[in-house]
Structure formats: C-alpha cells, structure tokens
C-alpha cells in the first residue's frame, strides 16, 4: 500500500480491486490537477465515480462511445493532461484497438488505460464480455507498457507509479473479487517481477488473479514435498527477463498461469524468453486453450479452465511428471 493515503493496508480486505482503483484515483486527483478521468457510461461499475465526486470538473463521461473516448484521451495528453481512461477490458482492447495503437501508442502519449472486468471475470456475461485477447493486443503495440496487478494493493501501487511514468500504460484489472496476495508492504517497480514464494523444484509465473490460485497450489504441493516458486509477473511488458532466466536455471520446470488465451499473453511472452535464451526446460502454458470461453459464474469458469487452486496443482504435477 503506498504511503500517504487516508486508507491503509488493513482496509484492503474490504476493497475490491476496482474499488481500490476508484479510491486511489480520487485521492491522487486532488493532489495532481493534471489528472483527468474518462469513462464510457461505466462510472458506477469501474468506480471512477469516486473521482467524479471529488473532481467533477476533470471527470468526463463519454457515453457508450469508447473509440471517441480513447482518441479524445490522446488530445488531452497532447495538451499536458494525464488521462486515466476506463472501460471494460474487452472494449478497451478490441473495440478501441486502432485508437489505442494509432492515437496513443504511436505518438507515445501519457494515457493510462485502466480496464476492468478482464479475463473471465464477467462470468455469465459470456464471450462478448470476456477479455481473453487484451494482453496479446496491448503487448504487440510498440511503446506500450502492460501491467496486470495481482490484487487491490498492487493495483494501488501500479496506479501511483503510473502518474509520472513516460509513455502509455495499459493496466488490466479484474472484476474485483480478487483475494489479497500482499497483506504487508511490498516493493513494486514497473518491469521488475515479485517473487512472492521461494521454491526450487518448479517455478510458476502468473499474473492477476492467478497469482493467488498458484500460491494456494504451492502450499498444497509443499505438503507433498514439492517446492514451488511463485513469481508475480505484474509487468508483462517490459518483461523481467532476468527473473525468468534465473527461475529456469534454478528450478528447471516453468509453468505460466494466466486468465487469457494461451496465445499471445504471458505464456507466449515467457516462451519467447526461454527459447531465445536457449533454456531447455520443461514448460507449459495454462490459460484459456484458444477457445471462446463458456457462460458461467467466474469461479466455475476458473475451475473449468484449470485456473483455480486445483487446476494449477494438477498442471504443476503434470509438468513435473511430464505427462
């Protein structure tokens, strides 16, 4: 939890990730007059309404018109403002892909795109509202930084770090029911992964809500004598290659876990490093297996696609046993 806020680490259990986003933004907005917040008829959902209450003159609801909103954010950034643009991840990445790429990433503008309801977190919303391509899309854009906080605490740190950062940033948030990974203060630096659990037999590289599922699986495996390292890869780009290489050299086996299509996301990014560094390790990607996800409650979906404790547990065992 960053210092100097009216709430502290003990409040975190009460806040969903997107609630934390709203609160941090509202406090930062009162300190930095260049911050402007844009949303597309979702202020009540993504909690940007908290900012609207305290900084109404710098809050802009663009209605259900995301492409216009994204390009307008570029116009604001050109003129010295720091826009935080929020909509659902599926719209931020797919509907606005060209506006993000051409109007924001190409001119390298200081726009912060903070998406909510990423991955499968929209549950029964179904495929139209599941975002399982956004990491792939955003990381393929030059100049773009891609962050996936694991919980509300890391979300707060990411938003605070983003203010003075140079260039565009995509911050991927879930729906907000994420369990808390960081219960005490922790370091956060864009581009530097956090090893949240030490281990020597296998490394799990995860992001977002999958970090906690991986920690739980590691605890279970510990009882079976298997030592699992958990790496919270909160920055997908620029990727912390050093931590990946070190994990491969020290633990051999690598599993990636993400709430995203296995094509193009965290797993692909890690695979690129392993291949180019000639690291011949056992490697698997756990994620959505290149299909359109089905309808269901989020927890049921995480279970279906193996992104819960049990799924990660099984994947680690399979990796180690090579079956």
């Amino acid at each position, binding site marked *: 939890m960053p210092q100097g806020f009216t709430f502290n680490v003990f409040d975190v259990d009460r806040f969903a990730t997107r609630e934390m986003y709203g609160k941090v933004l509202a406090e930062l907005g009162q300190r930095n007059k260049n911050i*402007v917040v844009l949303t597309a008829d979702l202020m009540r959902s993504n909690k940007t309404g908290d900012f609207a209450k305290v900084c109404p003159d710098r809050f802009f609801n663009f209605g259900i018109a995301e492409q216009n909103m994204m*390009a307008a954010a570029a*116009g604001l950034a050109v*003129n010295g403002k720091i826009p935080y643009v929020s909509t659902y991840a599926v719209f931020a990445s797919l509907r606005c892909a060209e506006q993000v790429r051409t109007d924001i990433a190409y*001119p390298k503008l200081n726009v912060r795109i903070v998406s909510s309801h990423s991955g499968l977190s929209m549950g029964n919303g179904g495929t139209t509202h599941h975002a399982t391509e956004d990491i792939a899309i955003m990381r393929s854009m030059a100049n773009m930084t891609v962050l996936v906080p694991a919980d509300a605490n890391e979300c707060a740190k990411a938003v605070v770090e983003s203010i003075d950062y140079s260039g565009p940033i995509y911050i991927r948030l879930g729906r907000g029911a994420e369990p808390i990974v960081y219960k005490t203060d922790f370091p956060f630096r864009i581009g530097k992964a956090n090893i949240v659990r030490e281990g020597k037999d296998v490394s799990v590289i995860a992001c977002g809500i999958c970090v906690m599922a991986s920690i739980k699986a590691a605890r279970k495996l510990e009882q079976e004598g298997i030592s699992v390292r958990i790496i919270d890869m909160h920055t997908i780009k620029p990727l912390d290659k050093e931590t990946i290489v070190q994990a491969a050299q020290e633990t051999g086996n690598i599993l990636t876990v993400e709430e995203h299509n296995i094509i193009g996301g965290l797993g692909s990014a890690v695979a690129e490093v392993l291949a180019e560094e000639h690291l011949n390790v056992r490697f698997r990607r756990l994620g959505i297996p290149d299909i359109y996800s089905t309808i269901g409650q989020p927890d049921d979906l995480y279970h279906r696609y193996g992104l819960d404790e049990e799924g990660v547990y099984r994947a680690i065992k399979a990796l180690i046993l090579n079956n």
Partner: protein
Amino acid sequence: MEISEKEIIRLQKKAVDIRKKIIELTVIAGGGHLGGALSMTDIVVALYYHFMKYDPKNPRWPERDRFILSKGHGALCLCPVLADVGFYPEELMNNFNGLDSPFGMHPDMNKIPGIEMSTGSLGHGLSVSVGAAIAGKLDHGNWRIFCLLGDGELNEGMVWEAAMAASHFKLGNLVAIVDRNKFSLDGPTEEVMSLEPLAEKWKAFGWNVMEIDGHNMREILQALHSLPSPDSEKPTCIIAHTIKGKGVSFMENRAEWHYGGLDENKAAEVIRELEMAYPKEA
C-alpha cells in the same frame, strides 16, 4: 470585419505558391494525394497566413491555436505551409517519402515541428480535437482547435461520436472544417456513401453550421472572423465547398486524381497553368 483587397490578393498569391509547391513535392515524393491537397489549399492558407496565432520558434507555445489535420493524407499541402511560415527549412522535405524521411504520406507529430497530432487513419481527428478542446476549456485558454476533415471520412462512425461529444461538452473553442470536395477514393461521395443533407446533420448534432465557397478567400476569412469566441459553448462546423484537384484543369473533379504522380515535364505544364491564376495587383 472589413478585409482589405490587398490582404485578399496577398493570400490568393500565397495559395498559388503553395499549389506550386504541392506539385513540386509530388515529383520529389513520387506521387501524392493531389486531389485533396489542392482542394484544401485555400483553407489552410487562410488559417496559417491570416487567422491562426502560433509561434514557429516555439511550436508548443501554450496559447497557440491548434490545427489538427484529420485528413492526414493532406500532408502534401500542410507540410510546405509549415516550412514556409518558418517551422523548418524547406530543404528538409527534399527526401519526401524517402527512407527515414520525417515526411511521408501522413504527418507525424514527433518528427515534424508544428504538427499537432499524428494522423492518417481517417475519422480520428475530430475525437482528438474534442480532447484538445476539453484541455483548452480546463485551462481557460483563449485559443481554438481547428480540425480539417475530408468529406469522405465523414462516413466513419467515430466522427459522429465526436460530433455528439463536442456539443455535449459545450466546446465553443472547437471548429470543424469540412473540405467538401465531393469525392472520395472510389468516386463521388453521393455514389459511394451519401452524406447529404450534410449541414442538417451537423445542426442536428448541436453545432453552428456555416457553408462557404472554400476557394473564395474573402468568404473563408469572413467565416473565420465570424467565429464565436473560444469561451462560448457551441462548436462550429464550416462546410467548405471545394473542387477536388482545384487549379489543375485535367485533375478537377476527377476521382482518378485522388492520388497520382507527375513526371517533370507534366509538372512543369501544371505549374504554368497554376501561375496563370496569380491575381493581378489591386
């Protein structure tokens, strides 16, 4: 506002100079969007040589008027204007379209001083202008944003999202100018995807609308001088009726000259025709 005949003639001469440069650059560049560059020339000349405030020595001067070229393929017209008014030496354009040149078909704000926003993908400019106009309102700036749109790009849905937002956010500092040359790449706009009744569309979206002859310098200047002040609350759309390929008889109203190339002999012939349009001294 009374505009002197002398000023009109000065600007008309400048418009011929710029059209000649467009032709010269087309030879260097190996081709260009001639039709649309020639149709927008008088508007751009009126803005940069008469109406807009800016400082070529300080391109990001906060109090400047902003010009956003939504029809980014009009760079062939805008870039020689920016050179001529002093943003950079004309020689920089000698490698137009060449490897690593700052100058290509579409303008890049990080490579060309004076370019407010990188454009090229149609339909984006008005939305970016909405953002710039909101920034102007937040800063209580006494400046305007001029956004030049092609008429064909009004097919893009995003333009109308921006039109809706501009009146909703009360952006009286925003001026959209439509280069209504009545052609897009494939042919006449009313055959490809009809736009009329165009003025009524903008009015229905809550804009002030003016319709002018986009090649009549006096009408252009009068429209600019009649704009509401930047602290007003209603955006303005100037529909400038123009001729695609204006000034070159074999290009005028010909969709096949949307984009084209010229060899040196043909270019010399075109320049002779353009020079005949120099106004007589008053």
